[in-house]
């Protein structure tokens, strides 16, 4: 085998998450209360289109979660050795992008660097000019003449390829009448963009390069996993705590309410950034104290990311819990709950059947808003110096870097724009999708429709 799979902690958690989701789907496959809304979401125009986009992001994130180390060339008589550099399946797919590193900034589709340099000309004299890039457009003998024809030719081929794929995919579905136009158009867009990128990215830096010459498209794609992880794993920590404690506090009142309120008031009353800063520093100290556990750069960055998710979760559950408590306070006075209580329905049953469904929409709204908020919060935390590992590729680190680039003249805008676009599409899709889920899950909304 020329490689050895590596399971980082976050990979393991992703697998766990997938397993939980799969199990849930399997268990509930005959449950009509969940199947109907789900079908409704996927049948709606917005729901299906956004679900597709989210699926693409998740796909990128999953590909980036299959980690491995490459085997080094064997030396006779010695045990097989593996490289210390952990790569992912996505890295392998994007290896032309990963390896085509320039010296420093270059604009999207540029063939020359963004800054002038002193070079020795063919006649031995020193001139100051924009040097050619090592990779971007390097196949062109005369960029001035050949650039547009080459880009158009490759781009056209890419678009064509995307459309062919689309036709092959969509035809059988259409024949069975199982799809509608919004989904089809979204798929077309995705495939055409993918086609364009596949055709152009190996030969040009489609989104330019950053300060040390890394391809920005590659950075953006790698950031997807970090963003998804911070959004999902944090929510995983938040949900059980917030729902359980919030509803219990609101419903039971008394001693239970006191203890839970004490917990979340104490946590919540400490200004968030300070608490997160302190906790991240503690984790960092722990990582420093046990360097033998984190032997690769990837493992260190990964542990720090997980810790950040955990901390954000532990400090972030209080807001939702308070909201749920207030809502429960209101709900428990309502007739149907009072009636259920009067009929002697058990407490757990009231909580699960009457209260939980009636606060679910609040949970969903909060989770969705938090999802994007969490991805964005990372940039702010990086500004304070307690974000993800500086070596980790993330939207936060990209935006934070772009902060300085905007002060340049001429301005370096592409890293900010790339991060913005990738994030924007992700958050927009997530929000619109959640709106659909909310409409479908909300019992009152369903009654109205």
């Amino acid at each position: 085998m020329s490689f050895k799979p590596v399971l980082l902690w976050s990979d393991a958690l992703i697998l766990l998450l997938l397993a939980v989701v799969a199990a849930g789907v399997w268990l509930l496959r005959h449950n009509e209360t969940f199947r109907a809304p789900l079908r409704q979401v996927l049948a709606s125009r917005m729901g299906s289109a956004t679900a597709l986009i989210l699926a693409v992001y998740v796909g990128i994130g999953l590909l980036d979660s299959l980690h491995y180390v490459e085997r080094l060339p064997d030396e006779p008589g010695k045990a097989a050795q593996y490289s210390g550099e952990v790569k992912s399946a996505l890295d392998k797919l994007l290896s032309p992008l990963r390896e085509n590193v320039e010296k420093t900034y270059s604009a999207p589709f540029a063939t020359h660097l963004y800054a002038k340099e002193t070079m020795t000309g063919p006649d031995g004299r020193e001139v100051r000019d924009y040097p050619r890039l090592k990779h971007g457009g390097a196949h062109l003998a005369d960029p001035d003449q050949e650039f547009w024809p080459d880009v158009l030719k490759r781009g056209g081929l890419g678009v064509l390829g995307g459309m062919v794929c689309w036709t092959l995919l969509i035809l059988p579905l259409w024949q069975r009448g199982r799809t509608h136009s919004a989904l089809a158009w979204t798929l077309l867009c995705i495939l055409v963009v993918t086609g364009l990128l596949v055709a152009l990215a190996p030969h040009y830096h489609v989104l330019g390069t950053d300060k040390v010459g890394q391809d920005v498209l590659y950075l953006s794609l790698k950031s997807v996993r970090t963003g998804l992880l911070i959004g999902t794993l944090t929510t995983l920590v938040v949900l059980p705590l917030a729902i359980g404690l919030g509803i219990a506090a609101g419903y039971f009142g008394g001693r239970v309410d006191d203890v839970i309120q004490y917990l979340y008031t104490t946590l919540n009353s400490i200004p968030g950034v300070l608490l997160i800063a302190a906790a991240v520093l503690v984790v960092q100290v722990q990582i420093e104290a046990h360097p033998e556990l984190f032997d690769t750069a990837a493992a260190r960055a990964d542990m720090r990311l997980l810790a950040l998710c955990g901390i954000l979760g532990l400090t972030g559950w209080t807001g939702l819990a308070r909201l749920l408590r207030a809502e429960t306070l209101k709900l428990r006075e309502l007739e149907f709950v009072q009636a259920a209580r009067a009929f002697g329905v058990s407490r757990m049953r009231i909580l699960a059947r009457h209260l939980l469904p009636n606060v679910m929409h609040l949970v969903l709204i909060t989770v969705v808003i938090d999802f994007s908020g969490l991805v964005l919060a990372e940039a702010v935390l990086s500004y304070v110096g307690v974000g993800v590992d500086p070596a980790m590729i993330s939207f936060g680190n990209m935006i934070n870097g772009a902060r300085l680039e905007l002060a340049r003249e001429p301005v370096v805008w592409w890293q900010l724009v790339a991060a913005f676009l990738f994030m924007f599409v992700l958050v927009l899709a997530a929000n619109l999708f959640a709106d659909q889920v909310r409409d479908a899950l909300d019992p009152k909304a369903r009654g109205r429709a």
Partner: protein
Amino acid sequence: MAEGPVPEQGKVAKIAFAILAACVLAACTQPVNSPYSAAESGGSVLYSAFGERPKHLDPARSYSENEYVFLGNIYEPPLQYHYLKRPYELEPQTAAGMPTVRYFDAAGRELPVDADSARIALSEYEIRIKPGIRYQPHPCFARDAAGKPRYIPMRPEELAGIDNFLDFTETGSRELTADDYVYQIRRLAHPRVQSPILGLMSDYIVGLKDLAKVLAEAAKAQSKEAYLDINAFDFEGAYVVDRHTYRVRLKGKYPQFVYWLAMPFFAPVPEEAERFYRQPGMAAKNFSLDWQPVGTGAYYLAENEPNRVMRLERNPHYREDFYPAEGAPGDREAGLLADAGKRLPMVDRVVYSLEKEDVPYWNKFLQGYYDASGITSDSFDQAIRMNADGEPDLTPDMRERGIQLATAARPTLSYMGFNMLDPVVGGLSEPARKLRQALSIAIDYEEFISIFLNGRGLVGQGPIPPGIFGYREGIEGVNPVVFRTDCADRDSRSRGNDGGCQRFKRRPLEDARRLLAEAGYPNGRDARTGQPLTLYFDTAASGPEAKSRMDWFRKQFAKLDIQLVVRATDYNRFQDKMRKGSAQIFEWGWNADYPDPENFLFLLYGPHRKVGTGGENAANYQNPRFDRLFERMKDMDNSPERQAVIDRMVHLVREDAPWLFAFHPKSFGLRHGWVKNVKPNLMSHNLLKYRRVDPAARATYQAKWNRPVLWPVAVTAAVLAGMIWPAVAAYRRRQKATAHA
């Protein structure tokens, strides 16, 4: 008082009128985006900024560049560096002449000046100060009609009524005496002052260590509030000869001491100040030497609100001091001697505003609200371009604005250090040395300088930066371990224009690979186990800038197929690792305290190593041959013999390669045309008194550069209207629909 109270209404009207007048005046005299109030602007004022509030303004305690910006202009140590001359040259400031030194042996007999340093047991410096120098006005000198101190002692109820430093309405002044200098030397041992050089100076100044011990005991014995009279204790290290003369006694020979006499640590502090500030209740109101200095310098700190602004005003009692009449070659042509012989200071007021971020600082500079600015890596391309000779020059845009550029090599070394105690990269064994040499070649700092410093740096060839004795210019200063001198080669880094063999270039990567193989790691893999070599880089840096730097380092190590793991951590943890010696590779730098090679070479002196002794030798380098040479070199005067010793030391360090001499940064400063007499002087801190400004030119330019752009207001209004219109229309439609239904 004969005047009756002003009627309330009249007062209100008066205030209202004053406000109106101020607004109108402000609107007329300065652009709307001016960050200064109308009262603050105009006149002979310099505008500058500080990035973080100074922690300490006590000259015995302060030890950082950003505090010296203020302190240097407020306090006057006996010596200063000549403003214009290069290399840096000490000259008297408050002293009447350069200090004289006498040497004594262990038996107390005086020795000739050229005596062997091993025989010298004691050196005694005598400093005479100029008579008639007076302190700034300050309440600690204020006296009542009876001639008694006005505010010492102060009744608690009186202090309770004082909230602002300006509420001390009465001030006074007095002549500077030799006592004040001696008092400050004693203060270095004051337990409440916590001077950062106490440890270092205890090794040199006679009796300072004992004084510190005795004072600490005395402080413990009395209550926290009580005044500790440090003059009441015996101290042999410094004493007053007469009103204007004092002597300092040092153990052995320490020729570098005269440089310390140009630093604020040895500036005068009047005992009245201590007595005034140490009164109970003062510190709680932020009245302390750390906050409100008392000096003899050209300026005094008139307003200290470090959350926003710090304002220096001309000291009305400032001594007679004149602009230098001679300078370095070229200074006259540059107009730096136009004010020769004029009375200093030439600017009345200096306003420092708090500015934490680079981007707003730079933009305000371009708007004309700051007089001078550095250049960040991101604003570089906007400001500077290289001319045909490869020399840095201003862009046409900057030229048009009348902006001027001044560059200077900094007496600073940035280096990448190897922990010599580390089992992989450390030690003086041949393989470890070759590994370090291989890395020295592979890590291409020329590229680093061009990416991260925009070329504002000089590749390091050895531990001594340019401008300091022992540094060798040009081809004879090249580090042969890393660079190859090759006259035939055209692609060179150096631009020797005398046609001689001035060219050198970094050794090719093959050399590094060969060294790596010889070190036992062919192709970056351990020859014995076949395991890939992984090295660890420890850093406390964070933020986007650091990230790209770390990416770059990884790329450099990868050239030799070595994987670099960056262990980023916080400052404390990093320091801790350095102290324990558990770091492997790290970045470090050193700014010269004074322009002497000893201040750099001591960083590699074995007995000063970090682990165990807590010294400054961060790489924990220990080579007995180097240490012996260092001990000889440090007491020598600058001479060809000293140069020869230094050359041998540099050779040793290059071969052993405990450091990778990264670069010496160059300082690039921009200033507007209305600021005159600017020459970078990286050793002096009392530079403000030499500056001159042309306020009229500044006002003209500020008005020209800050005309508000008004069309976006119209566009925004139009867009808002465009958004409201469909809403209104839809509302109407709906109203109609419901009305019909």
